[in-house]
């Protein structure tokens, strides 16, 4: 039996999607900004949202809701959280300057926290794929590194004062003391060094294990300095997500349908899943706001409030369905393309 690859697809694809592309883009934007060229952040982000960002939200909803078994596994997340968020949305429509502003502020604070959690998870996945034994200490130090990066970012952003807007809805900046961001940076550096030492002692040699950490540093630091680049960070986060979710989807479908021709199965299932998620993304980000407008909610309030609500729902769902300790999740994330195109396993059921 061949030894397990540390990559889901291969070194080029994994490196590009997990962070290589975003780092190269940051370098390109930095060079363009330094030379005084116009940068295409917002139009590029808007165009890519259709095919990557929105489908990534749909992919997590699809994963949770596409079978009764999944819903039964996480009933509170699947049923109670949408009800709670719907109440918050309705309240926000009635009181956009208070509840609406709070919902949007909460989403804006939660989003980079969610990015940090994903970066941590991907680091642990690649470490596991590379055969490293990650103990509690390594996990703790890695978490401290990623979440210190989160605090560095938000303390920095929130050290300003004033009012910003998402659509027509204003929300305040908190004006926290600026030294908090410096303190978080110090903590991040200490735990970053600690993580390097611990992973080296565990025998980590594959660069992909370190890539999520470097990538998050670039997202947060370059994003803070190059506003046009900051528009693209959610796209890069979504790319990471889609690689992992795609591999997981193929693994589950392969187990469910068994003996499909390998290469054709991967292509057909990938296209089916992509089409479903593009449609799901359009539902979440076009049809839902459209329905709210039909119900009489002004677009300038409906769009940002629903945008925040869909994202908060996604943060909840992702925090629950991707726990590596779950025996249905962790082992499946060791799959790679070679497994999927190898002779099919016996049919195990109809999980997916």
């Amino acid at each position, binding site marked *: 039996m061949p030894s397990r690859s540390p990559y889901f697809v291969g070194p080029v694809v994994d490196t590009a999607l997990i962070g290589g592309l975003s780092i190269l883009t940051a370098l390109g934007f930095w060079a363009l900004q330094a030379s005084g060229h116009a940068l295409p952040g917002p139009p590029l982000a808007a165009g890519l949202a259709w095919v990557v960002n929105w489908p990534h939200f749909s992919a997590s909803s699809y994963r949770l809701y596409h079978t009764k078994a999944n819903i039964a596994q996480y009933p*509170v997340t699947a049923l*109670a959280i949408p009800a709670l968020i719907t109440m918050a949305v309705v309240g926000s429509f009635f009181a956009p300057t208070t509840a609406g502003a709070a919902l949007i502020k909460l989403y804006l*604070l939660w989003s980079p926290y969610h990015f940090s959690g994903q970066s941590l998870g991907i680091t642990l996945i690649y470490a596991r794929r590379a055969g490293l034994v990650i103990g509690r200490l390594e996990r703790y130090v890695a978490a401290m590194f990623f979440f210190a990066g989160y605090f560095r970012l938000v303390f920095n952003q929130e050290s300003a004062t004033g009012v910003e807007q998402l659509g027509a809805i204003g929300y*305040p900046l908190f004006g926290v003391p600026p030294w908090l961001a410096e303190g978080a940076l110090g903590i991040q550096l200490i735990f970053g060094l600690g993580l390097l030492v611990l992973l080296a002692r565990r025998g980590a040699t594959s660069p992909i294990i370190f890539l999520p950490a470097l990538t998050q540093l670039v997202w947060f630091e370059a994003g803070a300095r190059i506003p046009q680049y900051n528009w693209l960070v959610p796209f890069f986060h979504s790319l990471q997500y889609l690689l992992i979710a795609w591999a997981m989807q193929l693994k589950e479908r392969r187990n469910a349908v068994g003996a499909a021709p390998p290469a054709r199965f991967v292509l057909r299932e990938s296209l089916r899943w992509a089409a479903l998620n593009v449609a799901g993304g359009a539902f979440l980000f076009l049809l839902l706001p459209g329905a709210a407008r039909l119900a009489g909610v002004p677009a300038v309030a409906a769009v940002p409030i629903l945008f925040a609500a869909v994202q908060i729902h996604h943060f*909840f769902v992702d*925090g629950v369905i991707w*726990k590596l300790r*779950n025996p249905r999740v962790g082992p499946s994330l060791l799959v790679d393309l070679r497994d999927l195109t190898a002779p099919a396993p016996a049919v195990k059921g109809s999980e997916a």
Partner: protein
Amino acid sequence: MTAQTAAGVLLMLVGFALFAIGVRAKHPWARSGGLIVVLTGFFVLFTMFLWQADGSSAPLSVAQLLGAAAVFRLMASFESAPPDP
């Protein structure tokens, strides 16, 4: 303390109590339900104090931000898959 503030604090306390009971009794519904109540109470307080956290009071601004981060952390233990039979 206004009635809304008191309601937010009360909701959070009740939610934490439910959550603690759920953890001790290994009762997933009580744990998740408790966290929903905590989140609801937090949202009430977060909304109440949002526009006051404008930098004029550093402790309030820091409390809003750290409170939000603590809630995000808490929501990571929101619901776990039941063990396989």
